[in-house]
């Protein structure tokens, strides 16, 4: 019977870690959560090794004749959902301080995993606000503000559509920025007085790899060199894909003979 309980604890801890990792938490936080949950259930020996792509956990109760359990969980598809991180953080604190049973914990985790992102139109509005106000910050006028609002919404929707077909992040960033640059150039060639520089910068800010940069630094700082390096590479690749998308469109526009750059 003891073994069945251990298995449940293991599944609970790994599930919590997996949800955290999928919402874009740092390695340190994931490992800490898994360890705390296992220790709270009275398992003395816990070792966790987490990366963006998987979690490895070993448990041992410390008895002479008990087996050691190891579980490997492959993680696919990382996004950013800060509400889930916050809820999981609170859950792990609650689980360790109060005597919540494993079944109740599993139930809570299921609730947390069903938390939805804000409705899609709201997120598009958010992206449009980001792009339009950044175009103002980078020297755009009222006209650029309006253009950037529309273009930001369009390129964020495009990123979502490409995401539905599970196209990888490099191609996605490339296509979305190419679309944004193309729309900005065509609008500015039709509407006199629109400044396409400010519009394109505004649209770029939606896709900029800020999460990867932040997490890579925090991973390096807590000594997880491997994931720090992986995330730094991801940030670099995203930046290159965005720049390449914009650059390709600018170059094509220039060679076809649109407005001179």
């Amino acid at each position, binding site marked *: 019977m003891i073994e069945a309980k251990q298995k449940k604890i293991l599944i609970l801890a790994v599930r919590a870690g997996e949800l955290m990792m999928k919402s874009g938490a740092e390695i340190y936080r994931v490992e800490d959560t898994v360890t705390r949950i296992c220790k709270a259930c009275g398992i003395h020996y816990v070792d966790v090794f987490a990366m963006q792509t998987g979690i490895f956990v070993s448990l041992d109760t410390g008895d002479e004749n008990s087996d050691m359990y190891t579980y490997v969980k492959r993680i696919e598809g990382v996004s950013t959902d*800060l509400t889930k991180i916050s809820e999981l953080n609170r859950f792990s604190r609650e689980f360790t301080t109060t005597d919540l049973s494993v079944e109740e914990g599993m139930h809570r985790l299921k609730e947390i995993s069903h938390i939805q992102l804000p409705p899609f139109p709201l997120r598009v509005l958010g992206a449009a606000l980001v792009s339009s*106000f950044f175009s103002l910050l980078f020297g755009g006028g009222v006209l650029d503000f309006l253009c950037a609002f529309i273009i930001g919404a369009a390129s964020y929707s495009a990123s979502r559509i490409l995401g539905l077909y599970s196209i990888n992040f490099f191609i996605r960033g490339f296509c979305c920025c190419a679309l944004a640059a193309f729309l900005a150039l065509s609008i500015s060639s039709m509407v006199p007085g629109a400044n396409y520089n400010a519009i394109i*910068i505004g649209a770029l800010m939606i896709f*900029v790899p800020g999460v990867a940069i932040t997490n890579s630094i925090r991973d390096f700082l807590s000594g997880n060199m491997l994931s720090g390096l992986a995330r730094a590479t991801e940030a670099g690749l995203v930046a290159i894909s965005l*720049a390449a998308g914009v650059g390709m469109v600018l170059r094509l526009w220039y060679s076809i003979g649109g407005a001179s750059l």
Partner: protein
Amino acid sequence: MMTLFLQFVFSLIAMLGFCVMFHVPVRHIPAAAFIGSAGWFLYQLCLYFHVSTIIACFLASCSVGLMSDIASRLLKDAATIFIIPGILCLVPGSGMYNTMLALVNGNLSQAAATGSRTLMLAGSIALGLLVISAAIRIVVSIARKAVNIAAKL
């Protein structure tokens, strides 16, 4: 000064957009938006006083790190929730674009100059966060020890 204030307001609204995109918990949206736009304000303030962009970016990312840590302790939540939206304002999207523009125009020397400046800006964001979180760790561990010693006395 007026433009600085306007910049603050604009970045505040842009930060609200980021908060929605990354699904910051509703109760933390005011704090997260304020931290991000305060970082941007500090950046612009430094530029206003003719500090170099790299130092300005470093100081701004330090302030974002510090404010996020304080907010995470006050509101009892993970610091990441405040840092991720806060840092996004400072990421040099315009530098990336200008590098690409120079490259497309065949102006290689300008592209190299802007490109290296962009990389340095990204590095200074990283360095700012690193320095501040290392400093916080040291301060917190010293404070813990002091509390322990005081408890023993």
